[in-house]
């Protein structure tokens, strides 16, 4: 298995809290496919800085409220 990036995220949690925003809708909002959103949620892919900012903007929170460093 590929080594997972040491970046944690709360995308799934925030998405569900955000009126049950679907993975497709989030993907469309940030310009990636649903599969990429799934990969981000499962920690299999760390998004680019641009996408990370887009995600935090969608949820109306700061970048560090969505992403964190493992162990912090």
């Amino acid at each position, binding site marked *: 298995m590929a080594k997972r990036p040491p970046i944690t995220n709360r995308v799934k949690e925030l998405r569900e809290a955000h009126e049950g925003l679907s993975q497709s809708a989030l993907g469309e909002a940030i310009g990636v*496919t649903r599969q990429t959103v799934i990969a981000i949620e499962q920690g*299999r892919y760390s998004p680019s800085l641009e996408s990370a900012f887009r995600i935090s903007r969608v949820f109306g929170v700061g970048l560090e409220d969505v992403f964190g460093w493992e162990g912090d």
Partner: protein
Amino acid sequence: MSPAMRFTTLVTLISFIPIGWHFGTVFELWGSAPETRVDFFIRIGIIVIGSIVASIIGAIITTVLTGKEDFEPDERETLVLRKAELAGYYSLAACICYLMWRAFDPLSPMQIANALLAAFTWSEFVKLVAGFVLLRRGV
């Protein structure tokens, strides 16, 4: 894996079946190799035209099913494609090294030409499989 990418992978994998069969005959693993230059070019022609037709059909199916006219990879897919391409280049380099190692073996011009074609085909196959694995496993 996006539907567009899934179809592209599927169509390419299907096109490897006749190509694999051809190389199998040339390297005497099964069937009979083309005996004349004309036979060889007819066979290669059929395979190439067949692959192009399959790609066109695949693109039409993708467009109909996904509603998107072209396949635009997102950032993750782009990264996967780049890594897969790199794997393809490495495998091509390995094949070339192997062919250089066998340069003094008594091979017919037909086998040498096909060995080169097989090396390029193999690198494409590795690229495809690496892309598939990386998409499933993560990058």
